[in-house]
């Protein structure tokens, strides 16, 4: 019903991207992700068993033809560490797609703009499809675009906070200026936030905490799926403009017609 989303060489029917952390079990996670219809699922390298002979239940549960893996570098603090981790992730998960996350601050997990830009430039040269997690900073997003990332992933609010689009004014500018897909990542706490992001023209959203910590993650996944679809349809079909002032029933200037 809506236009498919193209990032790099891949086309997505679903604009709902998901994460794999915080779920109460891999079975609960698998059920929720399948219900969400998500086709791009991010996995932290730190959670992956990549040693020879190791059996990884997490990866097994994500082994579905429609699901593409997006390894992330969560845990690194510098560009150097990110590049090293990315090389390992590419080999271990057999994909050159990468969600670049560099947060030297483990408390709020705030992305480091300087190191992220530095790493993105290098990783693009190394042949990665880079999707950087970044601040809702319009200038930074343009810089990232210039070094060749495949999409930008600005935050809606601090990660895991469920606060919604607290960076709304900046996100609007990013969406307006960007010539690559904009994926709103972090802070989306409920389906209405996701719908709001999509109505604004975001190309996709990434949801993790709001699904994983919901009392019923599968039902919440369905709710997010529908919200993302509704928001996108609304965006594509065109929203009616917001009218701030009521039209006066006795216009002040109507006397001009009588002159």
């Amino acid at each position, binding site marked *: 019903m809506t236009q498919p989303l193209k990032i790099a060489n891949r086309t997505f029917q679903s604009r709902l991207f998901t994460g794999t952390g915080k779920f*109460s079990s*891999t079975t609960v996670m698998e059920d929720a992700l399948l219900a969400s219809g998500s086709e791009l699922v991010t996995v932290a*390298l*730190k959670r992956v068993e990549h040693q020879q002979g190791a059996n990884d239940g997490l990866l097994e549960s994500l082994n579905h033809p429609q699901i593409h893996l997006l390894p992330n570098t969560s845990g690194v603090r510098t560009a150097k560490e990110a590049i*090293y981790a990315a090389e390992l992730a590419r080999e271990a998960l057999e994909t050159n797609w990468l969600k670049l996350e560099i947060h030297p601050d483990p408390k709020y997990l705030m992305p480091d703009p300087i190191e992220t830009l530095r790493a993105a430039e290098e990783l693009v040269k190394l042949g990665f499809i880079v999707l950087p997690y970044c601040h809702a900073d319009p200038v930074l997003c343009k810089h990232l675009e210039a070094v060749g990332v495949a999409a930008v992933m600005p935050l809606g609010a601090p990660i895991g906070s469920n606060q919604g689009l607290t960076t709304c004014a900046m996100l609007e500018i990013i969406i307006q200026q960007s010539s690559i897909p904009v994926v709103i990542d972090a802070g989306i706490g409920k389906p209405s936030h996701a719908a709001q992001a999509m109505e604004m023209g975001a190309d996709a959203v990434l949801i993790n905490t709001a699904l994983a*910590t919901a009392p019923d993650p599968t039902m919440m996944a369905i709710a997010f799926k529908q919200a993302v679809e509704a928001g996108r349809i609304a965006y594509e079909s065109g929203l009616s403009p917001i009218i701030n002032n009521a039209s006066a029933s006795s216009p002040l200037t109507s006397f001009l017609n009588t002159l």
Partner: protein
Amino acid sequence: MLFTEHFSHYNWDKEQRSIYAKTEQDVLGALNRQTRGYEDFKALISPAAIPFLEQMAQLSQQETQKRFGKTIQLYAPLYLSNECQNICTYCGFSLDNKIPRKTLTAVELLQEIAAIKDMGYQHVLLVTGEAQQQVGMDYFKRMLPFIKNHFAHIAMEVQPLDEEDYITLRKLGVHTILVYQETYHQEDYKLHHPKGKKSNFNYRLETPDRIGRAGIHKIGLGALLGLDDWRTDSAFTALHLQYLEKHYWQSKFSISFPRLRPHVGGLEPKTVINDAELVQLICAWRIFNRDVELSMSTRESKTFRDHIVKLGITSISAGSKTNPGGYAVEPQSLEQFEIDDNRSPAEIAAMIKAAGYDPVWKDWDPALQFV
């Protein structure tokens, strides 16, 4: 500035009085605030908060699930040595205890590693006493390369070291360092640590600063609950954490809850922290600080641990042996402290699952720690 300077502005007796003077109103204020400070923490650990325990538990569970999800991290302690030059009045490894002393050789270490890995562990906590000759930096430098290849995450709970040593350990793959102050009561600290390097209160108090300056990823704090008034010691630990979070913003922090319990022939605790109070303390920590990791050892009973995993704890050990060689080399030797919960890691993992949580065996990767 180091923590010792910040600490010098506080007085034990004054803090203690202020905790015990907290009222129901203070507790309600602490529960209802969005952002909580040190005074709120004091209210939450005060006797005035005891009637609010259920409310605190609900709030703690909510905050924990929001930040950490429905997951519990598993780790195993690996005792490298029970050699110790310190006298600590409460510890089984104390110099004046006439027990057989042992330090693992490389071959023994590999046997212990194999046994721990067989149980499924990827996160290991290395523990020693304080004996510079037998288990100083030279020993660590020799042994860490063996350990590094086998685990995703290495934590250490050893004697306080200098900043350069912590940098070396980080480069050797150590991710987390735990150093407990035991007590923040300066005079009583001296009574309990009359001999050895550990008797230097300030050197120990400044240890987390040195760890932070060395860029260690995670720093563990704690007080030995019961050695002195547990409430006041916990308040000082909170003060310490607040200071460290501001100064070493790139490090994560964890809090542990070792409690001293009355037992025949052992040191009588000055104050006994009972089960309900320990729950109160754990919940107070979570409500005070949403991001700090809270860790629970096998010192606690089966029933207590079964319930506490839902109340704010983020990591637990299981199947622990607290004697060097305890897993494979010399299972019968004397332990540092008695284990209460003897269940195997598989049984603990099953318990975690039954509680609706995912037991996490791997949550770090050496690849992320580029040095």
